[in-house]
């Protein structure tokens, strides 16, 4: 895959901005009570997902972590789908049965993560195994938080991919924090590239706030995977600019660190990079306003979508037949909140999930 041309650069910019602008809409929808679930933002980390996914080709598979909205957009996800997903409406990728980016799409080669960390790499290994068995040249790319690398599943997944020389690229998002815990304290290591040593695979260090640097690292790693050389780790240094999720004001984060990293904002940096070249401030402003108005439209459309029919909760546990509800367990559509005489408040407070 060639170096990005002017056209590509503009696309990269679009996706970086789209990622941030979409998450801002999602945050507003949470505040307005339209999203019952939780939201984990990737503010300040957009370049990692966008730059890495940009190195993939059609037919490749990608498994995002919770902070890789940008990668999904690069791989063809419609903002509308993401809005419906979070708002749990009919026609959302999970038909309301799961939230966030927990959906899998064989056509677009997207594998959704699940709650327990470290697991999606193990499953993506199977996709890579399939490519290998069929002699296809497709590759797989996935992401792990720095804290996530401490899970047993992450280790088994990396060791398995390394031992079987699977066409796999794993991007470690070194954003300095695992929820409220200093990742370096958690991991007792300073050089994240050292993690790769334990698996006998190469690692590439990349500035996670420089979309071009991430893309270059990913391009190299993808090329290795495609040519049968197996797993490469990419360690992308960055910083989590907001709390772990909507429920975390991150009081534990030193303001000066945020200051320091705000100066390295990946979108600001890429803007000046573009302005130093062929782009104009007006040009970029036009790109942003197009995206903004499209997103506002998408939000209005999504809000108009209905919630799924209660009975659809029964579907697709097995290929066939549908589950039959046992007597009296068909749960009336009204739940706790609407039971007026209930000992619980009639309005749901937002869930405190992570």
């Amino acid at each position, binding site marked *: 895959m060639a170096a990005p041309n002017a056209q590509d650069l503009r696309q990269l910019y679009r996706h970086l901005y789209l990622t941030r602008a979409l998450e801002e809409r999602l945050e507003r929808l949470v505040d307005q009570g339209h999203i019952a679930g939780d939201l984990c933002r990737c503010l300040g980390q957009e370049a990692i997902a966008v730059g890495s996914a940009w190195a993939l080709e059609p037919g490749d598979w990608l498994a995002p972590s919770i902070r890789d909205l940008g990668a999904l957009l690069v791989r063809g996800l419609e903002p509308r789908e993401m809005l419906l997903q979070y708002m749990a409406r009919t026609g959302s990728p999970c038909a309301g049965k799961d939230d966030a980016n927990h959906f899998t799409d064989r056509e677009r080669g997207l594998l959704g993560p699940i709650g327990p960390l470290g697991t999606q790499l193990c499953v993506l290994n199977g996709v890579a195994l399939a490519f290998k068995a069929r002699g296809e040249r497709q590759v797989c790319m996935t992401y792990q938080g720095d804290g996530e690398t401490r899970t047993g599943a992450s280790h088994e997944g990396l060791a398995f991919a390394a031992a079987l020389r699977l066409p796999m690229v794993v991007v470690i998002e070194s954003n300095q924090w695992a929820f409220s815990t200093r990742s370096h304290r958690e991991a007792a290591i300073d050089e994240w590239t050292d993690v790769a040593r334990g698996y006998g695979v190469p690692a590439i260090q990349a500035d996670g706030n420089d979309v071009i640097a991430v893309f270059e690292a990913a391009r190299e790693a993808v090329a290795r995977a495609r040519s049968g050389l197996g797993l490469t780790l990419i360690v992308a240094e960055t910083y989590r600019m907001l709390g772990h999720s909507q429920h975390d004001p991150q009081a534990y984060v030193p303001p000066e660190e945020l200051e320091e990293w705000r100066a390295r904002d990946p979108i600001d940096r890429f803007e000046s990079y573009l302005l130093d070249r062929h782009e104009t401030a007006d040009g970029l402003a036009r790109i942003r306003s197009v995206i903004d108005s499209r997103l506002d439209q998408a939000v209005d459309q999504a809000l108009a979508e209905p919630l799924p029919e209660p009975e659809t909760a029964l579907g697709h546990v097995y290929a066939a037949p549908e589950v039959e509800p046992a007597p009296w367990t068909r749960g009336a559509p009204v*739940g706790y909140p609407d039971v007026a005489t209930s000992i619980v408040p009639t309005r749901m407070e937002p869930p405190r999930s992570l």
Partner: protein
Amino acid sequence: MKETTYLEAIREALWEEMKTDESVFILGEDIGTYGGAFKITEGFLKEFGPDRVIDTPISEAAIVGAAIGAAHMGFKPVAEMQFIDFIAPAFDMIVNFAAKVRYRTGVGAGLVIRGPCGGGARAGPFHSQNVESYFANVPGLKMVAPATARDAKGLLRAAIRDPDPVLYFEHKFLYRRIKEELPTDEEILVPIGEARTHRPGNDLTLITYGAPLYKAEEAAERVAEEDGAQIEVIDLRSLRPLDIETLVESVRRTHRALIVHEAPRFGGFAGEITAQLCEEAFEWLDAPIRRVTAIDTPVPYSPPLEDYHLPQMEDIVTAARWLLSY
């Protein structure tokens, strides 16, 4: 007396046990600096220091393993699972190490594994599960599931003092919704293995635990008002050991039994209760033992789907009426 939420009750039991017993310590993810995802251990790090309030890497197996080893050394560890769903990666450590070690070696592992369970919080399939049945067939484990602030406090204290591994399931839906006046002077201690008659009655025995207790109570009130029948609501509190005596006494008196739990139906805990009641109270039964549970699916995220998945008050009323008119 002091109004105490279910969450504060858990927090107080932990705090007081750590105050009075040097050997009690807590470990888990983000329980120190942050005070826990639900803020149950907020302020603990400051009060008890990093040796007794241990922030760990994201590694549930290592957390439970360390709790076992520390228990061997005479400590009383309380391990937090950020959500009880994440007990799954520690399954091997719990089932094969913690549960079997006393039997195999004579050296016990008195530890507590606690975490938020249950649905209704719009938290999706991985932050809403009830996991008791995964562990029900594992000798060596104890399991408790408090529904009231008093029991939350008294059972956690008992669990910490227990010489065997105890899984403590706290229902996240109750954290801030349940309040109760609790005495500040006396020590609240609820023995593991004793059920509690939440509402007396002679027409039907309703057996439940955890959050559904309140739907059961509501259903019982409704049936009392509208049908004039008195449902005896029994809150199990402890799942293992199971207080079968209390259940049998009640069922032999009411001749009817309804079991309600929030976990899915097939393979759920109601099975064991039914089997034991069938063995001990068969001759006294005037109607089949029935159950109201979640449907046999994962816990869906979208509110209408989750409400449909979970057992609801109306379902209990319907089931109770069916049994009463049997």
